[in-house]
């Protein structure tokens, strides 16, 4: 079934590409076997759907007419509209695009990138990523919902999905107008207008359960100009340090903690008094506990207690 459809869509594109004339629906039907074999009604449905699907692929079939058709609607693909215009990349531009093509660690996005590169190669461009050296990020997307959300965001299409609450683990149906996506620490988020809560919201893709369904038409809403997803995303960043801890660190130990020091004072040849700024008590307590006797908290008490609690767990002492 799938292969028949693939063949049909390809034949439709090829048939329309091979002529500069408008072809009537009857002419198109006559030249593609599967259309011919269908009943009239089935053909009409299929043809409309095929045109729609090609449009979604960016292949817009032009509808028009000319005298010879006597006013009957005709269809064509104008080469100047659908063909790739000549684009000549410099060695450096090709290198960064080639590098970009290697960034995606996601089968779908990697294939999209490669197909685009193949098209650009076909018209004479050569790609040598080693011509530039820069920091190569890795773009990962493990979330099953990624493809559909990415697609909907690009087309401004409202979506509906089941969303699992972090606190209760229960799922509710949510309706969203996606404005944009953000990746932070290998997790994807989609932000937009939440139709249920009637306010901007951010959703974590890994908590979307099951399928993402269309909930409207592409282009149905506008993304507000002042929508600042980065602002929303900033909430994902580690909070700014607010507190200062005073630690005793054994000489030559705990270098990663010392890296963050705002002040270091030698106590004696075996130890230093080190001040570090921090935001989340638990995170710093984890790091301190890792060093066992090499790092001791002098203040504040809250941090000291958090470290002692961890050490008690590790020592097998009941609290």
């Amino acid at each position, binding site marked *: 079934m799938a292969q028949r459809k693939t063949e049909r869509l390809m034949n439709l594109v090829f048939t329309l590409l091979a002529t500069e004339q408008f072809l009537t629906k009857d002419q198109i039907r006559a030249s593609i076997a599967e259309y011919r074999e269908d009943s009239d009604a089935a053909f009409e449905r299929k043809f409309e759907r095929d045109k729609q699907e090609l449009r979604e692929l960016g292949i817009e079939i032009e509808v028009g007419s000319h005298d010879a058709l006597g006013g009957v609607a005709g269809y064509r693909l104008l080469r100047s509209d659908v063909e790739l215009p000549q684009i000549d990349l410099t060695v450096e531009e090709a290198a*960064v695009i080639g*590098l970009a093509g290697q960034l995606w660690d996601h089968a779908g996005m990697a294939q999209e990138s490669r*197909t685009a590169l193949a098209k650009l190669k076909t018209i004479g461009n050569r790609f040598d990523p080693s011509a530039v*050296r*820069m*920091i190569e990020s890795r773009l990962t997307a493990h979330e099953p919902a990624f493809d559909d959300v990415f697609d909907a965001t690009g087309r401004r299409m409202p979506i509906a999905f089941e969303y699992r609450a972090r606190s209760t683990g229960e799922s509710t149906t949510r309706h969203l107008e996606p404005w944009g*996506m953000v990746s932070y620490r290998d997790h994807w988020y989609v932000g937009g207008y939440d139709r249920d809560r009637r306010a901007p919201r951010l959703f974590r893709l890994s908590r979307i359960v099951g399928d993402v369904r269309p909930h409207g038409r592409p282009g149905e809403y506008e993304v507000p100009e002042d929508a600042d997803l980065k602002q929303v995303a900033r909430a994902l960043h580690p909070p700014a340090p607010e507190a200062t801890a005073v630690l005793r660190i054994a000489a030559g130990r705990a270098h990663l903690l010392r890296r963050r020091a705002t002040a270091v004072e030698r106590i004696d040849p075996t130890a230093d008094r080190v001040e570090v700024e921090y935001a989340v008590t638990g995170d710093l307590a984890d790091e301190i506990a890792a060093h066992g006797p090499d790092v001791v908290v002098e203040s504040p008490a809250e941090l000291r207690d958090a470290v002692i609690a961890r050490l008690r767990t590790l020592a097998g002492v009941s609290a």
Partner: protein
Amino acid sequence: MNPSLKQVVRMLAMVPYLQSNQGIPLAELAREFDIRPAQAQRELEVLMMTGWGEFHGELIDFDLTALEEEGVVHIRDAEFMPRPLRVSRSEASALMVALQTLRQSAAGDQAEIIDSALAKLAAAAGAAEAPAVDVVEPRGDPAVQEAVAEALARRRRLRIVYVNETRDEQTERVVDPHRAFTQAGHRYLSAWCHRAEGERLFRVDRIVAAQVLDEPATTEADSRSRLEDLFPADRDADSITVEVAPGADWLVEQYRMEVESEREDGTVVARMWGTDPDWIRRQVMRFAGRLRVVGPEEFVEQVRASARLALGAYDGVSPEQGV
């Protein structure tokens, strides 16, 4: 987009590509489109069923002898489609998101190059809209990040002060930067280390200070410098058995543990490797309550002893041992 539509887009791209690459090996075609050779073979078979008409000469054809005997692809009767279609919106989006991500750490004139590449891609797609997709990169010391990017771009040596977490030591080294990449949320620099006289991988957030030197980097990249080398693959290193508490199972992936069993309450029993026993001990102690060592017995005892010693500094039982 459903898979069969993606396939249509790919096969439409193959038709002109094959005409400008007559005689390309099937394996190379597959690599070019990031699909398996068997998939490429199937798609060629589908292409033979298509064309602008239904008669010989109107249907796309391949030199089947060359394909079967030499594994190379010669396309025929495809002249009706000499040029590829425009880069599709989703293809452009994939590349644009990647380019915008690269741009965040561009050095020198690289940002300008990326901007002109983005403009040409937009023209290739016939739509100038870049997708509203942002990748927030791991944050670090901006001065260090800039020095790394500049040394890479200008192919200069870099002097770094580096904290080796495994050995808990801080050292100064001169390196030839080869590649910098992000993986699993951290940024790494692979470089030739003149101090160790070998290819080394450095975590950029553990570079305390970096200075671009005037001397050119003279060594070339070693293909072995991969993240996988950070964690022993041969599994000859020391290992311990741990219990990972429910909800902390991300640790399994972070430390590339091997899961042995999973209990009904969600606790995972797994094997964890490390070349340095002190390093393993620090990781276990860092995740107190979430990771618990269950074996070997002497390691369990080491963790307990270290924690007791640390507690001593607070209880006043043995303060002289604390620090």
